[in-house]
C-alpha cells in the first residue's frame, strides 16, 4: 500500500516538473498576445493561492487582501525611482508588506467571519486613500511610473512571463510545504474550530498572523512584478477589489482547500473572461456574473475538489467490494 502511494506521488512530481518545463519553453512557440494572457494567469494563480491559504485552509476571507498587492507595487515603484535595482526593490517592498500585515494582523485577526472580511476592505480603502493623497511620494491619484527597461518588448514580455511563472511555482511549493507541516495542521484546525484549537494548545494568534504574513509576502511580490510589467500604476487600479473577487472566484472554481485548485481556477477563469471580452464585449460583465452563479450552484466544491471526491468515493466503493469478496 505504501509503495503504491509512493509510486503515485513520484508520478505526480514527474508530471508537475514536466508541466513546468513545457511552460518554460512555451513562449518560443506562441505570440505576444498569448504570452500576456499566460503571465496574467500566473499572477492570478499566485494571488488566488494566497487567498486559498487564508480562506480555503484557515477560514478567514481576506476581502481587502489586494492592499498588499498595491503596497508591493507602490513600494517597488518608489524604491526603484530612488535608483535601487529590481532585485533589491521587490524584496524590500515585500518586507514592508509583511510588516504592515503583522501590525494590522494582531488587531484585525481577532475579528471573525463577516467582520474580518469587512475590516480588511476598510483598511484597503484607507491605505488607498493615503496613497492617493501622499502626492509627493506616490504621485497621487494620477499614478506613478517604473523605470523603462532598455530591451525589445519581445524579450521584456518573456522576462515577465518567466518571473510570474517562477513566482507561481514557488508560491505553490511553499503553500504545499506549509499546509502539510505541523503548522499547517494548526491552520486547518483554526478553520474547523478555533476555540477548540486554542484549548488544544495551538497558539492561534501566532498562527493566524504568520499565515497572513505568508499570504501578504507572495501577494506583494506579485504586485511588484505586475507594476514593473505594466510600467505604470495608479491607486484605483492596484487597490481594485476586482483582483480579489476574481481570485476568490478562481479559488472556488478550482477547489478551495487544494493546492492545484487555484492554478486550474486561474486558467479556467482567465480563458473564459478572455473569450467573453473578445466574443461579446458588451455583455462580458453579465457573462462573468452568470458563469459565476452557474459554477457556485453546480460545482460548489470546485474542479479539483469534485475530482478528488469522485476518486475517494470510488476507492471507498472498491475497498467495500474487496471486503465483500474477501469476506
Amino acid at each position, binding site marked *: 500500500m505504501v509503495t503504491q502511494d509512493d509510486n503515485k506521488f513520484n508520478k505526480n512530481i514527474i508530471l508537475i516538473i514536466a508541466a513546468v518545463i513545457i511552460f518554460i519553453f512555451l513562449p518560443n512557440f506562441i505570440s505576444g498576445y498569448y504570452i500576456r494572457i499566460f503571465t496574467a494567469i500566473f499572477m492570478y494563480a499566485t494571488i488566488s493561492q494566497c487567498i486559498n491559504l487564508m480562506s480555503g485552509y484557515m477560514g478567514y476571507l481576506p476581502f481587502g487582501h489586494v492592499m498588499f498587492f498595491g503596497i508591493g507595487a507602490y513600494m517597488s515603484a518608489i524604491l526603484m525611482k530612488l535608483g535601487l535595482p529590481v532585485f533589491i526593490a521587490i524584496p524590500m517592498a515585500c518586507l514592508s508588506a509583511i510588516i504592515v500585515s503583522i501590525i494590522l494582523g494582531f488587531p484585525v485577526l481577532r475579528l471573525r467571519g463577516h*467582520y474580518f472580511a469587512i475590516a480588511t476592505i476598510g483598511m484597503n480603502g484607507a491605505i488607498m*486613500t*493615503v496613497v492617493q493623497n501622499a502626492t509627493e511620494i506616490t504621485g497621487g491619484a494620477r499614478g506613478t511610473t517604473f523605470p523603462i527597461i532598455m530591451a525589445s518588448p519581445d524579450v521584456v514580455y518573456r522576462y515577465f512571463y518567466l518571473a510570474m511563472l517562477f513566482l507561481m511555482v514557488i508560491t505553490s511549493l511553499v503553500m504545499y510545504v506549509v499546509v502539510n507541516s505541523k503548522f499547517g495542521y494548526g491552520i486547518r484546525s483554526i478553520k474547523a474550530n478555533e476555540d477548540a484549537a486554542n484549548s488544544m494548545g495551538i497558539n492561534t494568534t501566532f498562527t493566524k498572523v504568520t499565515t497572513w504574513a505568508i499570504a501578504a509576502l507572495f501577494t506583494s511580490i506579485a504586485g511588484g512584478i505586475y507594476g514593473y510589467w505594466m510600467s505604470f500604476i495608479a491607486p484605483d487600479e492596484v487597490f481594485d477589489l476586482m483582483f480579489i473577487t476574481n481570485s*476568490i472566484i478562481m479559488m*472556488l472554481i478550482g477547489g478551495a482547500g487544494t493546492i492545484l485548485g487555484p492554478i486550474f481556477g486561474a486558467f479556467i477563469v482567465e480563458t473564459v473572461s478572455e473569450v467573453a471580452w473578445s466574443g461579446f464585449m458588451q455583455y462580458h*460583465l453579465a457573462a462573468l*456574473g452568470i458563469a459565476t*452563479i452557474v459554477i457556485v*450552484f453546480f460545482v*460548489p466544491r470546485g474542479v479539483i475538489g469534485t475530482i478528488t471526491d469522485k476518486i475517494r468515493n470510488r476507492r471507498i466503493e472498491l475497498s467495500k467490494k474487496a471486503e465483500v469478496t474477501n469476506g
Partner: protein
Amino acid sequence: MGLQMFVNALLLGGLYALMGIGFSLQWGISGIINLSYGAMVLLGSYLSLIIFNMFHIDPFISMLFTGALLFLLGAFIYRFALQPLLKGGIVFTLIVTFAIRLIVENIILLVWSADYRTIRVSYAGSNFQFLGAFFPLTKFLTFLVAGVIIYLTYQFMTNTKIGKGIQAVALDKEGAMAVGVDDQKMYLINFALGTALGGVTGTLWATIYSFSPHVMDVIIGRVFIIAILGGLGNIWGAAAGGILLAFVETSGAIFVGSHWQEAIGLVIMVLVLLLRPHGLIGKKFFG
C-alpha cells in the same frame, strides 16, 4: 456658516440613514452581506428615471412603485440565488451577490450607458430659509420622507406579526422555529424589505444628485460604514450611523479636505469594529 453646515449634514444624514437600514437589516438578520446593494439602489434611481421621463410622475410618488418592484426582485433573488447557498457560508453569498451586481451593472450600462443622469423636478431649484439657514426643498423633502419611512419600518418590525416573527428569528432561530415561525419566510421578507428600502433610497437620491453606474461602489462603501457604526440589524442604530457619517464627512471635508473624507469614514469603521463590534449604540442585540 456653522448652522448651514449642520443643516446640510442633517439633510444628507437622513438619506444615509434610510440607505444604511436596508443593508443593515439584510446583513444583521438574514446574515447576507449584499454586495449587490449598490446596484439595487441604482436600479431604484433608474426605474424612477424611466417613470419620470415616460409618464412624468414625480419621484416622490413613483418611489412606492419602485419600492414594490424591488421588494419583488429582492424576494426573487433571495429565494432562487441565495437561499440554496446559505449552508455554504460567507464565501458563496459574497460571490453570488457580487455576480448579481455585475449582471445589473451590465444591464444598466447597456440600457442607459455610463453617462451621468439626473431627474429634474419642476421645484428642484427652490429653497426656503429657516432660522438663518437655507433648506433646499428637495433635500428637505427627502429628509422628511426618509424619516417617515424609517419610522414605518420600525413600526412594522415591532408591531406587526411578521415583524415580530423576523425579530424572533433574528434573536433565536431554533426557538422561533419551535413556536411555529417559518424562518426562511421571515429571512425572505426581511431581505426583500431591505432591497425595497434600497430602491426607495435610490429614487430619493435621484431627485438630489446625479447618478451613473460608477456610484455603485460609493454606495457600497457608505452602507458598510453606516451598518457597522450602528450595529447590525439595528434600525435606530443604522439611522444614527447614517447621520453620524454625514456629519463626519461634512466636517471632514471642511477641516481636513474633501479627498480625505472617505478614509476618515473607513478608519472610524475599522476602529468601531475593533473596539465596539456591536456598534456605537450599546446593546448586543435589539429586540
